[in-house]
């Protein structure tokens, strides 16, 4: 048992921290967000040069050979900067798809470019009617000659606007909500019939509604197994949730720390705000909640990294807890800052929004509590009378 970072992990953490400190001032971020692209290509090149874009890929694939713990460290630190670059879409989402389901040919074609920063990709998994259910896929891919023809619309696809490739879940057989019959395809974003409606999201990132109108793909564009794409989608979701929650946990730390610092300085009724016991207790509770989320983040990440069968349950637990605690911490930070908490001027408001957005992704906390409850172990009743009435 060991909770220490390895030397390599510490170096990684420090280098991301330094990059964020040097480059992600709130004002610069705002300007960047309002630029046409919405992020910095220059930063993206630096990510590539620093090896970050190759972090989760194996060395034989041209990557950095990191594991899920490395990604957790990376995401927590990037999250503290609320970065605008499409790291999540291209490295986390598309990366998870490729690593877990890519054919040798697809890996060859894409990983090198993703690692060098020359190719960007994303995953389109969500549809309007499905809400949070990955099974529910109305987009179809019909067999046509040697290939397939894809039709349908995908919702809120992260960074589709700048993606060169869109990995899309489509139905190749079965009824709309069947578990079986879903297939993932790698689609060139410039293919005929792909059209995008782009918009900024409330956390200053970019997303799109992506419509596929009779988009032709070949059988070699199938990622993972024909008709058995759901497992791969779930794998992508699990890794994505771990990454998002790492980001969230980093934000939570900053939220309670910034709040304590602010309230130490601000006076009301002749006392520093931080002298008021109700605020002190609120801060203690914010700290506790952040630590509890961190514990679950470590637990879920380490178990998943070890390939434990229990990890999916832990990932639902984590997403529930991060959503719930994120609301408590975010709202507590805003409330304690008073009017300043709701301005764009301080970073806490931006973390507050980001936590709300993360909660909505892949299902909010109630959804994940339901999923956890479904998977919860119920021991056989041994029928023993309790010999410890205390409990």
């Amino acid at each position, binding site marked *: 048992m060991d909770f220490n970072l390895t030397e390599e992990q510490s170096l990684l953490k420090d280098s991301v921290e330094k990059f964020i400190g040097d480059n992600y001032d709130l004002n610069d971020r705002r300007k960047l967000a309002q630029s046409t692209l919405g992020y910095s290509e220059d930063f993206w090149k630096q990510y590539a040069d620093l090896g970050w874009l190759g972090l989760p890929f194996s060395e034989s694939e041209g990557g950095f050979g990191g594991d899920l713990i490395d990604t957790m460290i990376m995401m927590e630190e990037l999250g503290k900067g609320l970065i605008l670059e499409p790291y999540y879409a291209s490295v986390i989402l598309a990366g998870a798809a490729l690593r877990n389901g890519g054919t040798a040919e697809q890996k060859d074609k894409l990983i090198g470019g993703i690692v060098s920063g020359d190719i960007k990709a994303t995953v389109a998994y969500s549809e309007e009617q499905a809400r949070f259910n990955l099974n529910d896929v109305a987009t179809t891919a019909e067999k046509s000659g040697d290939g397939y023809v894809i039709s349908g619309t995908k919702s809120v696809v992260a960074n589709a606007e700048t993606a060169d490739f869109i990995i899309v879940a489509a139905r190749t057989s079965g009824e709309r909500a069947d578990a079986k019959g879903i297939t993932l395809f790698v689609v060139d974003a410039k293919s005929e019939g792909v059209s995008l*409606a782009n918009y900024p999201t409330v956390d200053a990132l970019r997303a799109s509604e992506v419509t596929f109108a009779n988009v032709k793909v070949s059988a070699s564009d199938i990622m993972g197994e024909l008709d058995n794409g759901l497992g791969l989608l779930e794998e992508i979701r699990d890794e994505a949730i771990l990454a998002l929650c790492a980001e969230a946990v980093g934000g939570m730390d900053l939220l309670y720390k910034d709040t304590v610092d602010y309230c130490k300085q601000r006076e009301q009724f002749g006392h520093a705000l931080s002298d008021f016991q109700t*605020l002190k207790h609120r801060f203690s509770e914010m700290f506790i909640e952040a630590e509890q989320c961190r514990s679950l983040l470590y637990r879920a990440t380490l178990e998943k990294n070890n390939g434990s069968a229990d990890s999916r349950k832990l990932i639902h637990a984590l997403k529930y807890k991060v959503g719930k605690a994120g609301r408590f911490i975010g709202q507590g930070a805003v409330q304690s800052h008073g*009017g300043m908490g709701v301005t764009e001027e301080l970073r806490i408001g931006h973390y507050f929004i980001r936590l*709300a957005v993360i909660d909505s992704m892949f299902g909010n906390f109630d959804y994940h509590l339901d999923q956890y409850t479904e998977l919860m172990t119920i021991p056989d009743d041994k029928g023993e009378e309790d010999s410890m009435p205390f409990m």
Partner: protein
Amino acid sequence: MDISLNKEELAFEKEVEDFLAEHLPRGHEMWTKRAEWFAALKEKGWDVINWPKEFGGPDWSPTQHYIWDKVSCKEVLPPVMPFGQVMLAPVLMKYGNKEQHERFLPDIRDNKSMWCQGYSEPGAGSDLASLKCKADLTEDGKHYIINGTKIWTTMGHVANWIFCLTRTSSDGPKQEGITFLLFDMKSPGVEVKPIFTLGGSHHVNQVFFTDVKVPVENRIGEEGKGWTYAKGLLQHERKGIAGISRCVYALDKLKEKAQRVPVGDSTLIQDQGFKKKIAVAEIELLALEFTELRSLADMVNSGSPGSQSSILKLKGTEMQQTIQELTLEAGGIYATPWGNKKFGPKFSKGGMEGYLNGRPATIYGGCSEVQKDVIAKRVLGL
């Protein structure tokens, strides 16, 4: 104990219903037929329902006010900024002189003047009385010269007048030495700087005053007594903020919206977990409506609201936020596109907007923490 309405009250309820049915502009007309609506209200004598009879109010009993709220909350009325009619006017009527009444009240009544409030300062939030914005009387005694800043000035960028708390003396307790002034926002030396709130909205501002010259006849009441006048005003503000009938309306709308959120072949309103969260909110509101009614009844009996009234601002704003949170949850991923009017299922556009804009409700007008201190002090004697 009886909660039935008597014959006269029932007749009044019908009168309100009929009036709304005839005159209220609905849907998009709320914005295009505003003028006609306010004209009809004035014609009926219902344009300033909270004003005393002598200033043109309809002289309603508390029960009539309750009936008005109960009936009108089922609809969306064209909004009126509260600063003039609801917040300033009672102070003006009570503490202003006749000349000031004649000068300011008619335009306030007819929504011709647009007011903003100069209360908070960067260093004085919930501890409002520690304000520093200075007003120095000129040697000839004819003007005050204002220097300082006010913050969270809602609609300061469009208002033409401001009512402002200023410091005319620093001797003695901080509550003394505060003076209540009115002045033109176009006065030289007034500068308005927008504050962008989360999600990029611009409703509030910081206002800077540099040697702004205000005629002494624009002072309400006595110099140094402004705090007393302002305190009464805060109560009116709090009652407005509670917005309990508005919550009832909003919860009904949420139930409607949840029927538009697809969850596979079903909709969100069939989700037991979500439905139970709505039920919890509804039960709280059922109680809160009656708490408001009990407070009203105490008002009728004793002329002052009972201890229950202290609950209303605190719980009312909590309820607003609860409903906003549920609306956000209903939005799912479609709550995240910024200013989303186009994408996603036909429901709760602006769920995130409401969630973000709603956060200050528990901060301004006496934050929730202060409200609890106040209950501990006034109700529990601590």
